[in-house]
């Protein structure tokens, strides 16, 4: 065992190691990304809203540098978030609201996506735009989330992505999110919105949309735009 030992307050339901050592791969203001010996991404967070798969909520982030090792002892941690994405409906009454999210592509910082998105061909969007999760990947992620949410079996759009995606064509983090999503796992902000869209509470939908818009510089808006195109394809 190496380095300091972190005791999380709570963990995501798929955090199945009671004690394990990880390599620190990146350090940010609100998150620290770590990697286990099998190369799987895990994340330490300080805000419950940032929960995703293989995520642990901690009081404060460890003062660890990239390349150092830390251990996470999750024996006593409760489950704080279930990242699984079950099939559920998206109420059609929200469709007019969802469709206006397509308009985020008109924002200056997302215009680069609008230039290449033709409504079918997702490949030019892979890795497009700045950031650890490029906006193009956020967009595709949102589109796939809509399809996976509604259909138990992968439809043509999801199958096309699964077969057409070439490993290593975007950032490791974005690729990790794709893998999780295809395994029907999603981060909390997205799930919160999907759950709200299955119910009949307008304020809940607006709050969830706001939560996404506040995610990253453009990530949330790109995801919402992709989700809106996905929803439009199937609703």
């Amino acid at each position, binding site marked *: 065992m190496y380095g300091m030992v972190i005791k999380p307050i709570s963990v995501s339901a798929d955090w199945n190691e009671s004690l394990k050592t990880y390599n620190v791969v990146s350090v940010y203001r609100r998150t620290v990304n770590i990697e286990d010996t099998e190369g799987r991404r895990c994340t330490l967070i300080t805000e419950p809203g940032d929960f995703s798969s293989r995520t642990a909520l901690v009081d404060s982030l460890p003062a660890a540098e990239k390349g150092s090792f830390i251990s996470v002892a999750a024996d006593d941690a409760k489950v704080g978030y279930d990242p699984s994405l079950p099939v559920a409906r998206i109420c059609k009454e929200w469709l007019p*609201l969802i469709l*206006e999210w397509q308009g985020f592509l008109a924002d200056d910082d997302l215009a680069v996506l609008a230039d290449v998105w033709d409504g079918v061909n997702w490949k030019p969007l892979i890795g497009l735009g700045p950031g650890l999760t490029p906006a193009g990947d956020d967009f595709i992620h949102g589109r796939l989330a809509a399809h996976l949410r509604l259909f138990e079996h992968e439809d043509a759009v999801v199958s096309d992505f699964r077969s057409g995606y070439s490993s290593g064509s975007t950032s490791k983090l974005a690729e990790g999110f794709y893998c999780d999503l295809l395994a029907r796992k999603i981060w909390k902000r997205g799930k919160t919105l999907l759950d709200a869209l299955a119910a009949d509470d307008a304020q809940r939908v607006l709050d969830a949309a706001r939560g996404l818009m506040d995610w990253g510089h453009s990530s949330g808006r790109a995801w919402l735009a992709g989700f809106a195109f996905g929803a439009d394809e199937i609703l």
Partner: protein
Amino acid sequence: MQRIEIIRSSYYDSVTLMLVAKELNKLAGVTSSSLVMGTEANYNILASGGFDVEGLDATPNDLIIAVMGEDSSILENALKTAKEYIASPPWKKEASAGDYRPKSLDGALAVQKDSNIAVISVAGRYAGDLAMDCIDKGLNVMLFSDNVPLEKEIDLKRAASEKGLLVMGPDCGTVIIRGKALGFANACPVGPVGIVAAAGTGLQEVHVQLARRGVGTLHGIGTGGRDVKTEVGGITTLAAVEALLSDDEIGTLVVVGKPPAKEVEDKILDLVKRSGKPSVFGFIGGQARCDEPPVYICSELEETACVAAALAKGEDPVTARIELKAKEERLKKKAEEIGLRKGYIRGLFSGGTLCYEAQLVLAKHGIDTWSNAPFSKEKKLENSLRPTAHSIIDYGEDEFTQGRLHPMMDLTFRCERFLTEASDPEVSVILFDVVLGYGCNPDPASLIAEAVTASRVKSGGRIAYVASICGFDNDPQDFEKQKKILEDAGVIVCESNAQASVLAAFLLAR
């Protein structure tokens, strides 16, 4: 030194343009700046502000950025800043925090399914189609936008009528629904009066004057100024009158505006007489006519409110009228105390109906006025920026509001006119309105007081400044505070627009 740049085929909302101009004026070395659409009126305003507009070829669809300053590097920087700000206003980023609000009509209706009214405030050329979309979706419409073509207004009102809906507007600044204000409106009590009005400061003045007499208003329905003309046929006015007459919560109906076309007036009268509900017609500038109780005919706004309040309180409207008339004598004495003077009256108004009423009151007192919005065509000023003799100007007219904020929100241009008028040695009285309430400038009195002070210095104390405040105690600007600021600056503040106009007339030695 000046720099003017034209951005072709660009529309920006007037709030953005005002805020950008304000930011530019803060830059060191910038002495003046203006961002306006290229309308003829805005060319004149730029020219009156000292800009050389010779050879400028902007159209009404183009944005003009004009800056004046000390040297070319300052002007270059100002233009660059202006373009950055209009492309990405820093204040918009702040405004985007907080709750998420849908941006589309369909999105809004998805989250608020029981909506039954839409407020439309977009550029006039887009407003008509958007209003029709709302009507198609079963919504009543408050059309705040102006510059909507008459033919479009008729189409909208006919379509709405077929569905039992109201189109309030265009150019409808004020609506009150169950005491709740939409647009420009005052914080007055809710009560048994229902008002139908053209929809601007006429409605506000009656609303306020009723409140000052202890009477509240339940609904105030704006119709748009053209509704009672023959071409439109009073579609909204008649529907609103009918709705309020059949509303048991409404004890007294008030209809306010310029005199309607004869056939429209007959229809309104017919509806009212058949209902038997006490009603007051405030047809500003209409022919003097006898009351036909329970229908009372008035020709001024305060008189309309005075009679309606008496009816609502079960008092004698005739006595109320006599008491109001008696105030004129007191105003005459007040004028003598202040000191009579020779010269001209200049009216600087933000409210269209208040401007119109001022002209009529002055005419009643033998003062012939010119205006950009006159009550008779032959008295129309050739150039609104070059008043002549007695002139009463409405700065809320379309010519001043294309790509600019309404003067009830942005007082900059009107305040500049206090100085311009002061430099005319023949001007001896400046008459003006100050409108308070939701949507209006948060502190108009301070801005006007500053302008009055500068104007007084420039005129050498020659000018008397006479005003009325269209406001009530609970207004967000604080009525008493605003009144004190004006009075401290030497403004004579009257109880109503009509009284201010009477006092202005009495101040002239003839």
